[in-house]
């Protein structure tokens, strides 16, 4: 049973465009939703995270939008750059200290 569903599987965006990746969850006990960025040959690194008490969080060009009633959250990358080309994972956590549950990942390619 996949607890966090992520789409699309892959995404191609022109330089300067907006990249949007979506995730959905079922477990209402989840209360922490991070996004991780992974470059080839590297481990995943935390990009940005949100808790359900806010609907949006922005850090530079990266924004998380959160819809608690729909149990969905998304990552928006504004002004996408070739350096953003990587695999992005959404994740969820039900209790501080427990392991993150990851979506299947989205491979983003930003063409110049």
């Amino acid at each position, binding site marked *: 049973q996949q607890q966090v569903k992520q789409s699309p599987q892959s995404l191609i965006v022109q330089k300067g465009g907006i990249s949007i990746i979506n995730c959905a969850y079922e477990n209402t006990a989840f209360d*922490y939703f*991070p996004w*991780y960025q992974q470059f080839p*040959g*590297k*481990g*995943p*690194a*935390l990009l940005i995270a949100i808790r359900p008490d806010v609907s949006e969080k922005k850090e530079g060009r990266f924004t998380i939008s959160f819809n608690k009633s729909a149990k969905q959250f998304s990552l928006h990358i504004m002004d996408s750059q070739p350096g953003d080309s990587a695999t992005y*994972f959404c994740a969820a956590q039900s209790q*501080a*200290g*427990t*392991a*993150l*549950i*990851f*979506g*299947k*990942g989205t*491979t983003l390619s930003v063409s110049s």
Partner: protein
Amino acid sequence: SAVISQKPSRDICQRGTSLTIQCQVDSQVTMMFWYRQQPGQSLTLIATANQGSEATYESGFVIDKFPISRPNLTFSTLTVSNMSPEDSSIYLCSVYDLAKNIQYFGAGTRLSVL
């Protein structure tokens, strides 16, 4: 942030052999996790390895196949036993910083089983 070193970074092994992966952290951490990432796939939790207790394995993973040691707060090992080609994957060590509520990952061990 926690810096995690994994050894080896990659290996090619023969069917039926075992490989032990080491994970060293630059700070003391209570909670440590081992994940598997198959090519182009997501991260699947193998087990939680907290210091001072036996590792807790997720469904589909057993101690006989993936024994874990956690001798102190900065080190852990994962052994992949009696390997088959299906074990070819990336194995990732991860630690949890409770104060910052951030989970950090090592660069992974890329294992190929022939």
